[in-house]
């Protein structure tokens, strides 16, 4: 290390040239959220797409209502409704191809259902049954994720792996305004950008993280402004304008698929119901605020557009509602059937092979169940399997304030 040996002689060069690693301008979101409905561009919207969105929105709204109703009947332990956010849910599903993966958070069962997942399977977790009711590899829907933002690095890793394998698979990962504060959000976006992984991050900004409003969550101009800090484009869209969300996501998916790297999309929307059935939203927001957002309803917006363009009449509306009612009835009916769980399954799928410790514990439970069965048989009751299930109902009692 030289400590300036010859004071007169050094000619410090000009500084090594600096330039931004990428041009920031195109990464910044527009000043206004992107909208289609109510603008001139709406006239050019594909009627078939609008009809498809509309059908899904009507069914989605009905699905949300039915799921919330099921909590009141004790058939779901808890339901975080996406009522008011159906445009985001439906658009996310429709923006993806079959080979793509969806990474939903715990609120996004509707997105999975709109992709084609059986609603009963989508709700398995929330009814108190086994955690994931479907095969993620078959459905390309990752498990519903409760630890906030932890699903985001998974989406990055999966998309990265797919790209390394040469598959043109895109991962779309969903997160909330609250979840954006977690370290995992930051790490995932950074990895995605550095790896140019084919991921689309859809941040549903619904105004609240349980009771915490935006003003206590962030001071940023918008969540979309975070994108430039990772070197990816940030897009801002009216989250209740289904065709707009669909277009922005489709464009981001295309970009990802063709090697353009990740995008962060902030959809501005609103949770019009309480956080879950266990929440009390009167404590932290006014009815007037909710009412204002209910008026900007994602289902009604598309319905109005279709009606305006003469693409939907009363019969059409009635037909979609009929379909939604059928979905709800089917869901109701099937959710009312008591699921059959085998208590011995506690010990399967902990490891590929049971450890000696687990075998011993399984033997213990088996013996307990047999003893209970014997006792019940003596008293003229059913089988051990039923015993396991009957008692289980009690476990689903709604948690006070939980989640």
């Amino acid at each position, binding site marked *: 290390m030289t400590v300036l040996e010859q004071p007169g002689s050094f000619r410090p060069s000009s500084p090594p040239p600096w330039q931004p690693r990428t041009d920031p301008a195109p990464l910044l979101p527009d000043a206004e959220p992107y909208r289609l409905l109510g603008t001139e561009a709406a006239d050019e919207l594909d009627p078939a797409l609008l009809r498809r969105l509309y059908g899904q929105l009507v069914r989605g709204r009905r699905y949300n209502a039915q799921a919330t109703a099921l909590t009141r009947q004790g058939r779901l*332990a808890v339901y975080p409704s996406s009522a008011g956010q159906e445009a985001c849910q439906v658009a996310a599903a429709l923006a993806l191809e079959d080979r793509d993966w969806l990474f939903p958070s715990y609120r996004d069962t509707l997105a999975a259902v709109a992709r084609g997942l059986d609603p009963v399977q989508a709700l398995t977790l929330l009814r108190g049954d086994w955690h994931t009711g479907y095969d993620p590899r078959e459905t390309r829907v990752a498990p519903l994720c409760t630890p906030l933002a932890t699903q985001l690095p998974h989406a990055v890793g999966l998309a990265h792996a797919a790209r390394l394998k040469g598959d043109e698979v895109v991962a779309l990962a969903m997160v909330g305004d609250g979840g954006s504060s977690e370290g995992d959000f930051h790490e995932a976006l950074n990895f995605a950008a550095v790896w140019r992984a084919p991921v689309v991050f859809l941040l549903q900004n619904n105004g609240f993280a349980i*009771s915490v409003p935006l003003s206590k969550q962030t001071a940023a101009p918008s969540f979309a402004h975070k994108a430039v800090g990772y070197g990816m484009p940030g897009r801002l869209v009216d989250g209740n304008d289904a065709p707009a969300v669909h277009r922005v996501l489709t464009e981001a998916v295309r970009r990802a698929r063709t090697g353009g790297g990740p995008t962060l999309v902030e959809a501005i929307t609103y949770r019009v119901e309480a956080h879950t059935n266990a929440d009390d939203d009167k404590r932290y927001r006014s009815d007037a605020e909710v009412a204002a957002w209910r008026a900007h309803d994602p289902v009604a917006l598309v319905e109005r557009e279709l009606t305006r363009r003469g693409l939907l009449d009363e019969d059409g509306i009635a037909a979609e509602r009929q379909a939604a009612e059928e979905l709800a009835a089917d869901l109701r009916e099937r959710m009312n059937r008591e*699921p059959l*769980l085998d208590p011995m399954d506690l010990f399967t799928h902990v490891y590929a092979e049971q450890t000696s410790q687990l075998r*011993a514990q399984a033997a213990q439970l088996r013996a307990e169940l047999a003893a209970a069965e014997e006792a019940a048989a003596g008293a003229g009751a059913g089988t051990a399997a039923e015993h396991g299930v009957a008692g289980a109902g009690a476990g*689903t009692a709604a948690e006070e304030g*939980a989640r």
Partner: protein
Amino acid sequence: MTAAVGQQSATMAQALNRALRDAMAEDPAVHVLGEDVGALGGVFRITDGLAKEFGEDRCTDTPLAEAGILGSAVGMAMYGLRPVVEMQFDAFAYPALEQLVSHVAKMRNRTRGALPMPVTVRVPYGGGIGGVEHHSDSSEALYLATPGLQVVTPGTVADAYGLLRAAIASDDPVIFLEPKRLYWSKAAFSPEQPEPVPGIGTAVVRRPGSSATLITYGPSLPVCLEAAEAATAEGWDLEVIDLRSLMPLDEETVCASVRRTGRAVIVHEASGFGGPGGELAARIGERCFHYLQAPVLRVTGFDIPYPPPMLEKHHLPGVDRVLDAVARLQWESEWTEGSEGSGRGWPW
């Protein structure tokens, strides 16, 4: 839900709320922070009314980031405050583990006493409330393995108040584990004359007995008391010890009892393997070896990820499983070579 003055009975949730309120009123250095602790009063309403009474600067809704919450609390403590952090659920405390182990637990030691960490971390823990995955973990083993932390957990309404006051008053960090399924348990409670809790690190004999000792804490305390009652029908007079504090551990109370009864069963909801019961059994084995009439047994959650609500009752140690273990305490010296370790019926 705030406990009314002069109230003679309260839930554990109310007692905790009262403890926070009294601590905040007494010492302006006490600050509460966490997710939804303000207007909502926390998802379990433990902080109900605090923001209103003491202002949002004293009871603060933070952004949603557990490492950020605990890390900020470290800085606040460095400046002389006494932060009380709420983690929303057990599994959501994990993101804060680095801050907890590398700073909260070590800061006093790292700075040769210059920066003590009077931080209380409240963690609702355990199952039995029908919570979906990640909402029912019993993570006490993580905290026990971390020198520098104190780990306490109340099993009664009165202790909830007393221990939380002691935790907040402590100049060292405390992991304050709140048994979720006892939040709504009710008992006599006079906040004006709270039962004295002799500081952190003291176990209590909840039920004296002579045949064997049940050692437990938190959510399993009512189970053990019920089991002890039921056991009288079999002629067993069981002593029940509520540890209250897992670290520091009151070995004297435990050993005195086991030396007297000669038999011990440890009961907790956390998985057995690597759980707190192992440490307890090991210590009893070390210190009471010649007094033991039978192996120290453990009745614990299985060594599995916490199961879904519909199956949790099979996982949680209940009265029957405790009684089964008591029955296996070799009452008639029935031991013969080979009877140990058969696997069948052993409570691990």
